[in-house]
């Protein structure tokens, strides 16, 4: 472990960390935005659920590198390429989370809302989605951590992230770089996870945590 390398390359390490954070968080958030309507539709119309779940499972089975390469003709060796691929992967976690979340709303609550005179849309927005929030956020935590970890594979098509330290460290037989990359990815993932736990607490003060 060469600490002098670490202190001498602070600005590089910081830049790679920021790129990783960007490439990890943005796809998970886009995935969230896409999953909510998809998941609601699948939870509401039973026939829609199996095809959606089959498609996301197939996507999840794709090796990430293969997907990056497959997107090159359309998107080139760009950030967009990685963001699109990781968004697709995050859907595999987020869509089932939204379905489970919406279905977890207790039947008496749903029935009471209808009987109080909620319109369908208002009931969805004001009752069902808020109650699905804990499950959806649990899915988002997994999606963010897994996409932060997958950013390093994007380095293989030249999209810069902490993955650079793995490849460079391997080529130069310089393990310090590998350790630093690994540690920062873990720290970044934990930090994002912590933020989301805070978000969940702020959004769901009503949840019984006893």
């Amino acid at each position, binding site marked *: 472990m060469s600490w002098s390398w670490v202190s001498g390359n602070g600005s590089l390490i910081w830049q790679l960390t920021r790129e990783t954070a960007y490439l990890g968080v943005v796809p998970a958030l886009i995935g969230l935005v896409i999953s909510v309507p998809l998941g609601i539709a699948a939870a509401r119309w039973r026939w829609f659920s199996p095809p959606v779940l089959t498609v996301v499972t197939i996507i999840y089975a794709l090796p990430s590198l293969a997907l990056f390469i497959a997107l090159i003709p359309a998107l080139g060796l760009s950030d967009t390429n990685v963001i699109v691929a990781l968004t697709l992967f995050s859907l595999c976690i987020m869509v089932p989370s939204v379905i489970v979340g919406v279905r977890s709303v207790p039947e008496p609550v749903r029935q009471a809302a209808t009987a*109080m*005179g909620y319109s369908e849309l*208002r009931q969805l927005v004001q009752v069902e989605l808020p109650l699905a929030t804990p499950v959806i956020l649990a899915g988002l935590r997994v999606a963010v951590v897994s996409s932060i970890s997958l950013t390093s594979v994007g380095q293989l098509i030249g999209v810069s992230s902490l993955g650079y330290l793995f490849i460079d460290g391997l080529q130069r037989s310089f393990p310090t770089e590998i350790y630093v990359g690994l540690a920062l990815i873990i720290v970044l993932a934990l930090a994002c996870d912590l933020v989301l736990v805070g978000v969940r607490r702020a959004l769901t003060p009503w949840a019984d945590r006893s």
Partner: protein
Amino acid sequence: MTKRYPGASVAVDALDLEVPDGKTVVLVGPSGCGKTTTLRMINRLVEPTEGRVLLDGRDVRQSNPAQLRRGIGYVIQQTGLFPHRTVEDNIATVPLLNGWRRAKARARARDLLKLVGLDPALARRYPYQLSGGQQQRVGVARALAADPPVLLMDEPFSAVDPVIRASLQDELLRLQTELRKTVVLVTHDIEEAIKVGDLVALYRPHGRLAQLDTPQRLLGMPVDSYVSDFVGFDRGIRRLSFFRAVGLDLQTQPIVGTDSTVAKALSAARDAGQPWILVTDSDGKPRGWLPAARLAPLADDTPLGNVPSDGFGHTFTVETDSLRAALDAAVLSPAGRAIGVDSTGRVAGLLSYDRLQAAVQAAEAAAQDAEPEPRSMPT
């Protein structure tokens, strides 16, 4: 009206039911008898296959379902409270749907908390922080928030323990004397139906009405063995709840004060022809029963206060209790006679089985005269 589900038997079969304004009608019957389906057809959670539901003479299908439901209070078994809303916002649900400003709706919610017997300090709590009984009260408050003339209650008290259930039932009765809503309540508990209903609609399986009647007449004149079996073997005794004790012919002997003597007590017992003497304290409240046989060997001038007496069980209050309470007091009394007291607890008189029986027969005859034919339903 009728409700059939595809591939299943009939849920509600040619039901014809009129709910009088300001009264509580209880739908009761075995599970799957169609009582809940009936309730849900009123606010269009279920649409009838045939027939119609008229609310104030207007077919409910002419109204937009959401609008219609905001005008009908609804309470369900598992409360159905919104877990993500505070107590006050739960109660304010329908006013907010109707476009009230939040501050006004919350003020209304706090008034309702008081109305249902809850501390307004609970307003900012979430449902998970309340007990089952408190949640159920919030459910009732929420249903009343927009002051709807009609209240539908689907097994509202089934999920709480018997003690809480009894207090919630009392609370409903109290609210009804104040608010006079038109209430339709579904239960599988015949005791609850008899306690809270002005009218009870007893269902047979497969959605047919067996009898629609006052609780008193359901107990007194069941139309057939199905009804009498459902009502229970002790319906005769339970029916006594509807007859008041106030006009009872009470005996005033033998009752003696604790400062009296053995001689006076024995003479009172002899005059009344009774083997048991009731001893009262200086306030005129019951102190205990004394058998004449225990007094006989004692000196005539022995003060009664020096003679140990037997307990007097419990009493009934003449002004407010029913014949059922009087009978119960008689059964539990060592002397076989009930002690009637006034509202301050002073002895008003004694009641023997003979006189109780005469009172029951008189009350039965009066009830028969009031309405001679049971209102039976085609079977």
